[in-house]
């Protein structure tokens, strides 16, 4: 567990940012509240962060902040869905997801012209997983079903997608972000995907 966390002191040392900057970014919602893990140590209360996530995020903020306002950055990182919809031809033209993924969606929801942002994320996640080669098309259908039915319930909060396979049978779980999961021995966690980073990638793709 200790390997995955970094203390605030070490983080500031490593990245060269100041307390003030860190607090300002937190105020602007660039760093989500649930990344701040407070613990008592022998040197008094300390704050820890999930190491990989925070380093990646700070790297992005530092690189982007000169050209982008902090408010725009907050939109980029926010896991909530913006009210956008995309036309079918735009999605194909801009090559956001592969045609196979689109076809899978059409099979499931019938013919469509406009894709809501919510659906778009579902297809995007599907596409990402298909591209890894770890998921079959049939399993993709289950994934779409899960995302369509349940993703809304997280209501903008960060969540992770778990892809689990046991003896050839696949299943998907959506769990709230950063929680720990333990599986029985026979089951295999094929993939854990942080949905918010997929959304981030999608938003960069769109803008």
């Amino acid at each position, binding site marked *: 567990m200790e390997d995955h966390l970094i203390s*605030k*002191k070490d983080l500031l*040392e490593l990245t060269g940012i*100041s*307390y*003030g900057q*860190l*607090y*300002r970014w*937190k*105020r602007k919602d660039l760093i989500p509240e649930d990344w701040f893990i407070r613990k008592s140590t022998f*040197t*008094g*209360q300390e704050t820890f962060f999930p190491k990989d996530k925070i380093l990646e995020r700070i790297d992005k903020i530092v690189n982007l902040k000169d050209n982008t306002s902090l408010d725009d950055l907050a939109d980029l990182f926010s896991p909530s869905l913006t009210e956008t919809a995309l036309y079918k031809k735009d999605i194909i033209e801009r090559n956001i997801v592969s045609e196979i993924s689109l076809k899978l969606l059409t099979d499931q929801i019938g013919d469509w012209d406009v894709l809501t942002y919510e659906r778009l994320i579902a297809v995007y996640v599907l596409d990402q997983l298909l591209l890894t080669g770890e998921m079959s098309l049939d399993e993709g259908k289950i994934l779409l079903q899960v995302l369509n039915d349940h993703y809304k319930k997280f209501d903008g909060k960060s969540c992770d997608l778990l892809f689990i396979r046991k003896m050839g049978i696949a299943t998907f779980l959506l769990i709230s972000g950063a929680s720990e999961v333990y599986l029985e021995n026979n089951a295999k966690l094929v993939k854990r995907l942080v949905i918010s980073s997929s959304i981030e990638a999608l938003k960069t793709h769109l803008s």
Partner: protein
Amino acid sequence: MNTQPLGDISISGIASSSGGTFNQVNIDGVGKIRGDVTCRQFQANGTAKVEGNLQADIVRINGMSTIKGAVRADSMQMDGKVTIQGPLTCDSIHFNGDVKIGANCSAEQFQASGTFVIEGMLNAGNIMIHIHGRCRANEIGGEQITVKQIRGNLMNKMMGALFNSHLSAEVIEGDHVTLENTKAQVVRGNQVAIGPDCVIDRVEYKEHLHIHPSAKVNHQLRL
């Protein structure tokens, strides 16, 4: 944008109203708003109660006010006794008096004179606190943090002794931290000045540390 002109609420005397979206909300006397309010300007003189969230460009409170939900505003000026049960998010907060916030408080400018209790974290770019009594926050963080004890006439001193006037916090972290009459577990910063009557268990600093002779610091560490 909304093209329809927004209405106002004006209460003089004792009355209550339902929530909604308004241009101006003025309360003189005793007023209650049952629900969430969104408005450009919220002004309360006397006793006001909002039984929901308050969102406004400008909030001006004189007297006693209670807000049950969260407050989001651009600028806030409070004189008197104010209780906010939810989180407070505001660009610039300025108050004289006694303020209680039941959750986190974040602002770019935070100027306080009087007493306060913040159950969560106080996160502001520029924090200026003049202590007149007991002040407490769980955690304080920002760029510039200055805490001053009000001195002066005999009356102030007596009141201070009577109410055991000081600021207490578990953690105080900032780039420039200047404290007086503060009790804290940990203070971390680049440039730290621990002034008179402070009791700090542990100070961690990067560039500069100054400790007043009457302050008590158990451990100090240069990073």
